[in-house]
């Protein structure tokens, strides 16, 4: 079973995504901050991280860098509430796989996950 880590400071979003991912047959784990996410990446070794950008304390971009240092393989999909081309470009440079704006269609998210997970099969 593919493991997906959802990182967002808003619990409602985490819960909703977890429910969706579970329905779709993934194993979903949640982190409510960047620090927590780094710990979970070490412990749980997820296949994919869904990472929010705007978070208090450690933001998504900082978290992205730290995760990349720990794990070169994990797929990271940035999810943001405000689309910004510059930020998006930067994320891709730092090794993110995709950059999606909220509110996003779950259909689309599933498509992205399926494509990315092909790397691990």
């Amino acid at each position, binding site marked *: 079973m593919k493991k997906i880590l959802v990182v967002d400071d*808003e619990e*409602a*979003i985490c819960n*909703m*995504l977890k*429910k*969706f991912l579970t*329905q779709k047959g993934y194993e979903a784990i949640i982190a409510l901050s960047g620090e927590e996410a780094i710990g979970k990446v070490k412990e749980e070794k997820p296949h994919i991280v869904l990472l929010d950008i*705007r978070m208090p304390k450690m933001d998504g971009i900082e978290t992205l860098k730290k995760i990349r240092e720990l794990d070169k393989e994990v797929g990271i999909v940035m999810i943001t*509430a*405000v*689309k*910004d*081309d510059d930020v998006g470009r930067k994320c891709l440079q730092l090794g993110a796989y995709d950059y999606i*704006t*909220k*509110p*996003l*269609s*779950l*259909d689309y998210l599933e498509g992205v996950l399926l494509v990315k997970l092909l790397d691990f099969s």
Partner: protein
Amino acid sequence: MFTEFFIKNLDIVFLIYGLAFVVTGVAIWVLPKKESEFRLADVLWLFVAYALIHAPADFFSMHSIMKEETGHIPGQILTSISYLFLFEFGRRLVGFTKKILLWWFLPIIAIGVVISSILSYDFWTSLNILVGYFIRFPAGLMAGVGFFLYYKTQKEKLKPLKVKKYFYAVSASLLAWSFFCGIVRAKGAFFPANWINTDSFLLTARVPVQIFRTICAVITAWGICGTFRIFNEEGIKKLQTEVVERKRAEEELKNTYNELRGTQALLVQSAKMNSVGQLAAGVAHEINNPLFVISGEAEMLLKDAKKDRETKEASRVILEQCGRAKGIIDRLLGFSRPGREVKRQPLDINKVIEESISLLSYQVKIDEIKIIKELTVNLPKPLCDKSQIQEVFLNIMLNAVEAMEKEGELTVKTYSEKITENGRRKIDKFKLGDKIVVIEIKDTGKGMDEETLKKIFNPFFTTKEEGTGLGLYVSYGIIESQGGLIEVQSKLGEGSTFIIKLAIVKEEEGQ
């Protein structure tokens, strides 16, 4: 007979003689000649000094002669001093045109006269005669010639003032006077005073020389007062130019004030839009998160095979409304931060206008509206994002069509312009000499009142029943982000004109 009459009434003649000088002196004194361009004004004070010292002195002196008391001493001293001033006046006046007489002439002559008098048989009589020959005569001569030369050299300036006759009269009377007063002196023991003197003059002419002196003095006084016209005219002219200049300055001030007011309005607008943009970005972020949760949950419900039709229908509605909300937020954000990739390229504005007009006809019925295109061919191409500019045109045209309800005229005009000092405002992003493209979109609709005009670029401000109030807000942001300006003029009942100005930037600069 004449002779007796004159001699009997000589005191009246002296009075007139003295008065002539007093009048002249005082008149020059009070004359507004400061800052005059005429150099005559610089030396006139010498004439004033002469006239005011001379008047009482000569009065004394002449009166004593009439009483046959030769050499009324204080009178003689005063007279002699007064002539020093006239001599200096004449010297300087001539000096304006011909610098032949130097400043040390006068002291040398004065000392010579005094020494000669001391050495002579009768000091006072000799002084009287010698001052006449060596100071009065040259003084009158120089003053007379000086006035003449002054007019000649200043002819261009003086001619329009019509003062020729005064200058010439003063000149002639001073010359004549230099003879009557400088040469015709008291009888002396030496030549020519033993030959030409007041007594021999009376015998020959039968009229006392004082009469001639007085006539000369009166003519001089009249003439000098006449020449004052130059200062008056000059003053009037100065006053006129001052008035004109003051009016111009006032006008300038008014223009600057109006300009400043316009600039301030634009600045306020610009600042407001900026803060609104920031606020919108913040709000968008906060709303997108819950919106994501809502749409996510609705999507899952919709996809859930176990749910009944009613739930699914409701989920579909929720999802649809979430999409609408997302659309509004995207547009709001489009102002503060262009979401999609902005592609700036040299844009054929006329072509975009043509396309916008045809797009417009799909969206609204424009059969009854006359569309007038005044598009300048070969319009320079500003660096712009085509779809953004098209959005602006469409927004404005849609508003225009709606403002006209059923019929009217929509005029779209394009032209290019160079920014000049006059057309530039401080807030303009354009620099002096910049080339800009101007697009005017004018309708004959219902127009707007001032209150509406102030708010039209505000987000969510709308006068339509169905409208988000984002069209012009977004348009404003687009034009701003392209370094342009958008303005609107409107009159209630007459229609509105939107004016868009875009800078023409060279490609390498714009990228």
